């Protein structure tokens, strides 16, 4: 990165100093930024090279399906899309309950490329959207950092960090076609525009900021982070006594236009004036008007008493406003904070009240090593960078400090919010690293001549030492004289940077590049073996079942079934209806006699379970089973009880010692049905839970096995129709197996001798 500062050796210096210095620098910067963008894209392509161009995981499958719908049916159809193939029988108003930014972006790119007669498959656009935007994010980070410091190397460093840091790569590898793919770029770019608007007090930049804020709202639910951070920044500035017309202009422009823009999204609608998450922005908007008014009055009437009175009045109005807010909330006009927000303050909240939020692994609190894993050396450069911001403390530095504070807190509470922390870490770390490098990579030793004092070190504020008389305000001469120490520090930094690159590559390659639809394993000879059970089963469903066969599965697989198998599902990853999910949970965790009527009522044709026992695949349904039980228990506490699924000693077991409720549950039966017959007697083993299973497999009466994938990961069961002669399924199945019908003689009472 040091190359970004331009050449410094004497022969080239002559060449460069011919007034072309600036353009050479610009050219170098453009080349470096292009290289950074290329590196950012390239490092995200592991999964495409190793596997194929495929959509990853769960949510991206829905986004992909929605994009295909958009491309096929046009924007207005998409906007009004009612999807009857999910949440059967309710359906989902998909067009009004999604963030359309991502799909529209891909759609626009698709049509643009077609216009340029490059007909790229929509799947490839979706797969490569996230890497492409990561290049833009790197550029946005460069712009944002350049607003913080005069050293241009900081911006380039920030861009490089942003490009390859695993914290961001985790959500933007090729195929990870999720809202975050474009949202992080929008987040950073909106912040850049906000800083620019604030610095210049410009309506134009404020309006641009609002525009990109609107785009952000259209793209990701995480827009609330901007909605809260910008007002907070403004509030902190006011509290620091830094109110200015620049702030007033920037904020009011952003708020007025941005809120209007955000209300255009059907899913957001009137939320900006009706929910608590958006109230800080509105409150600060009002507060700024007051402060501006008071500033005006103060300039007109210079009276001390009046001022104090005004400040009391100001406090009063603020208090009344707050009370009004509380009152409106209590009255139900303004929705209180949502559950997901509460769980940001109390990490145990979700587990007790909303198990469905807690059941998602990315909503769990972050483990400490994750910070180092995702950010590596940036995490220790980060505080140093924040400290540098304190040293200068212009308005924009306050923003970094506020962002750093809140970003760190949120990242600590929820794993997925590591994503929002990453940009500020990159910016702050780049400021710190560039400060170090700028000081130590100076080839010339500083001269001790008084007259050269002003230009001694890079990055010192221009204000310093305007007048020789004010010695206390001038900066001391900072510089390194010893070549050895320069070489040492520069070498150490280079080493750290190299290790950082190494770490990022390693993490990306090993942790974040698995499509999770396709599993890879190694054969004994070291060659790659691909386990493709998911797609095998989904393809089977797609080709060999009725077009409208309803599939019941746990909600995790809803989007995949919709996307790959193209069949209607009962519940999916949208999780908008907790009761419906609980119904599925109840069917899975109840006895067959209870589950069958539920399935009949919901017209279920097939039931799909994920079972990893044969392969040792730990993300299977039996391991998720307790969440199903908990979510069902939340709605039917009398019928489903979590305690019943544990052994008397409180263990969660699947072998012969499993509790009766467990053994009779539909999920258990479906997972282990016929499994023991795969092994010699007494050898049946569940490789995930390390349990030896009983020889007798559970007996299923109301379902029949329809398909099991090669490695048994996906098992599909067909729900039997009602019996032709009106028997219940247990009796019918028992008859099929050749048992005689138990004679119900006993119930008639003892025989009595006829006396007649």
């Amino acid at each position: 990165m040091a190359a970004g500062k331009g050449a410094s050796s004497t022969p080239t210096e002559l060449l460069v100093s011919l007034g072309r210095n600036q353009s050479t620098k610009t050219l170098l910067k453009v080349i470096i930024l292009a290289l950074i963008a290329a590196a950012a894209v390239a490092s995200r392509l592991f999964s495409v090279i190793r596997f194929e161009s495929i959509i990853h995981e769960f949510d991206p499958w829905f986004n992909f399906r929605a994009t295909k719908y958009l491309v096929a049916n046009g924007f207005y159809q998409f906007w009004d899309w009612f999807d009857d193939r999910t949440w059967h029988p309710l359906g989902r108003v998909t067009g009004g309950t999604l963030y359309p930014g991502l799909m529209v972006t891909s759609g626009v790119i698709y049509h643009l490329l077609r216009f340029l007669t490059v007909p790229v498959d929509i799947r490839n656009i979706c797969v490569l959207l996230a890497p492409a935007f990561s290049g833009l994010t790197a550029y946005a980070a460069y712009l944002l950092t350049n607003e913080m410091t005069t050293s241009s190397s900081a911006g380039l460093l920030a861009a490089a960090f942003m490009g390859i840091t695993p914290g961001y790569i985790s959500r933007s590898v090729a195929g990870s076609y999720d809202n975050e793919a474009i949202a992080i770029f929008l987040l950073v770019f909106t912040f850049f525009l906000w800083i620019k608007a604030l610095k210049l007090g410009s309506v134009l930049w404020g309006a641009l900021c609002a525009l990109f804020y609107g785009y952000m709202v259209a793209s990701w639910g995480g827009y609330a982070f901007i909605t809260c951070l910008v007002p907070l920044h403004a509030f902190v500035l006011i509290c620091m006594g830094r109110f200015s017309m620049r702030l007033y202009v920037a904020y009011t422009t952003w708020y007025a236009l941005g809120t209007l823009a955000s209300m255009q999204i059907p899913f957001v609608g009137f939320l900006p004036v009706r929910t608590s998450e958006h109230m800080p922005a509105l409150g600060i908007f009002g507060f700024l008007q007051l402060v501006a008014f008071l500033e005006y009055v103060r300039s007109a009437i210079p009276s001390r008493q009046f001022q104090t009175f005004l400040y009391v009045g100001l406090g009063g109005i603020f208090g009344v406003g707050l009370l009004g807010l509380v009152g409106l909330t209590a009255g139900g006009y303004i929705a209180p904070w949502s559950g997901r927000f509460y769980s940001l303050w109390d990490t145990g909240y979700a587990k007790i009240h909303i198990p469905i939020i807690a059941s998602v692994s990315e909503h769990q609190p972050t483990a400490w090593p994750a910070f180092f894993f995702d950010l590596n050396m940036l995490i220790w450069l980060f505080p140093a960078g924040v400290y540098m911001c304190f040293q200068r403390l212009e308005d924009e530095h306050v923003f970094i400090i506020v962002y750093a504070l809140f970003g760190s807190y949120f990242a600590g509470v929820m794993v997925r919010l590591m994503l929002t922390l990453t940009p500020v870490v990159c910016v702050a770390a780049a400021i710190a690293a560039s400060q170090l490098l700028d000081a130590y990579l100076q080839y010339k030793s500083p001269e001790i001549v008084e007259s050269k004092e002003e230009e001694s070190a890079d990055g010192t504020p221009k204000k310093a030492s305007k007048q020789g008389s004010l010695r206390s305000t001038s900066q001391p001469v900072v510089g390194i004289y010893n070549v050895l120490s320069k070489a040492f520090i520069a070498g150490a930094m280079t080493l750290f940077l190299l290790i950082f690159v190494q770490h990022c590559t390693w993490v990306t390659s090993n942790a974040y590049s698995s499509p999770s639809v396709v599993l890879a394993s190694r054969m004994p000879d070291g060659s790659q073996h691909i386990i493709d059970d998911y797609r095998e089963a989904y393809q089977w469903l797609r080709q060999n079942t009725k077009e409208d066969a309803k599939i019941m599965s746990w909600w995790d697989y809803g989007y995949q079934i919709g996307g790959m198998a193209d069949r209607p599902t009962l519940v999916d990853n949208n999780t908008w209806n907790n009761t419906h999910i609980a119904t599925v949970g109840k069917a899975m965790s109840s006895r067959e006699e209870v589950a069958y009527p539920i399935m009949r009522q919901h017209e279920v044709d097939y039931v799909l379970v994920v079972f990893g026992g044969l392969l040792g695949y730990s993300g299977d349904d039996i391991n998720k089973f307790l969440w199903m039980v908990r979510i069902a228990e939340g709605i039917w506490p009398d019928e489903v009880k979590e305690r019943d699924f544990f052994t008397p000693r409180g263990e969660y077991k699947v072998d012969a010692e499993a509790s009766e409720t467990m053994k009779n549950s539909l999920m258990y039966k479906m997972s282990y049905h016929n499994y023991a017959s795969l092994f010699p007697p007494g050898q049946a083993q569940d490789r995930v839970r390390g349990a030896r299973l009983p020889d007798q497999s559970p007996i299923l009466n109301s379902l029949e096995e329809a398909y099991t994938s090669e490695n048994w990961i996906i098992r599909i069961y067909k729900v039997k129709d009602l019996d032709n002669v009106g028997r219940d399924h247990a009796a019918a199945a028992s008859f099929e197996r050749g048992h005689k019908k138990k004679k119900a003689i006993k119930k008639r009472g003892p025989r009595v001798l006829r006396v007649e």
Partner: protein
Amino acid sequence: MSQALANNRLDSDTQFYRIRLPSPLPSKGQQTLGISFYYLNALKPLPASIEQADKQYLVYSFSAYCPSAYPTLKQKTEVKLPSSDAPEYTKIAGNGETKEFPVKQGSKLTYGPFPEVSAGASSPVKVRYEFNKPVTHVSQLERDIEVSHWGGNVAFEERYTLLHYGANLSSQFSRVKWAQSQYFSPQTFALKEMKFILGAGSKDAYFTDVIGNVSTSRFRVSKREAVLELKPRYPVFGGWKYPFTVGWNADSNNYLKKADGKFLLNIPLIEGPKQAEGVEYEQVDVRVILPEGAENVKFYTTAPESSITSHSVDLVRTYLDTVGRTVLTIKAQNLVDELRDRELLVSYEYSTAAALRKPVVIFTSTMAVFVSMWLLSKLNVSFSTK
């Protein structure tokens, strides 16, 4: 030379063809004709649904007499079955020494010889025989051949809609039984593997379906040929469907020749899977995508003329095209495995000017973008000029 008669109706049981003899047959003269034809959808499984491990039996209904519009003096029908296990066949009254037809010899059934039979007579018979192999039916095959002169490449892509017309499963598919049968007795009526034998020098083969790459394929290349071995994602049983796509690239030198200003492309009409039990194709659409600006397209094929239903030459616009590429579309129907090696010869003219069109267009448009960007950067759009 045979030719389908215009008044044939596709839904009719009988189709008439006119055969022109090489030379007029004099009175009392003799001429030997060998006529071969194929039936599609002629086999029905019986029982229609069986257990996974059971053997599949098929029924073939036909007439013991050869269909003919002329009186036949002497004839004999031989039925060669894939195995000697033919538990049921229609027996008809014999003639001469044999009391009863057919005469069974190993896997061969012989009806006849019969005495004189009048024109259009038929004697319906049925044969039920063991056929423990898939009954593979391709209801639609779309085959694209894209010729690139700049790349020196011929790209093939084939999209199959494959169905199994054999016996259905009487109970649901059982993975345990399947795994066991794979181990003990691998012979099954389910389709579990296909082998494509491609021309020498084929490369970059792929096998995908609607949800992406199918990882269970193998591509072997040797000097003489390239073999693409595919396993469907799941074993295809009777009544099941498996649509898929295969594609590969090949060096154009193997297929394209230049002769006196004309280009001659010689490719197989179909290159479907080579299965021992055979494959039938109901509808085949072959599209030969020639370079942009190719003119005067003519084609000739060694496949039976009667199977080609229509052909057309259109334009299609894809990657960086300005006028569009010339496309020859040939629609054929009712093809069978045996026609795999039949050639399709396409001749066309392609001038150097047409070949240079694309680079020139790209170069000028890129230059135009640069120049307009440069002009835009010279434009001053700010409000104040101070």
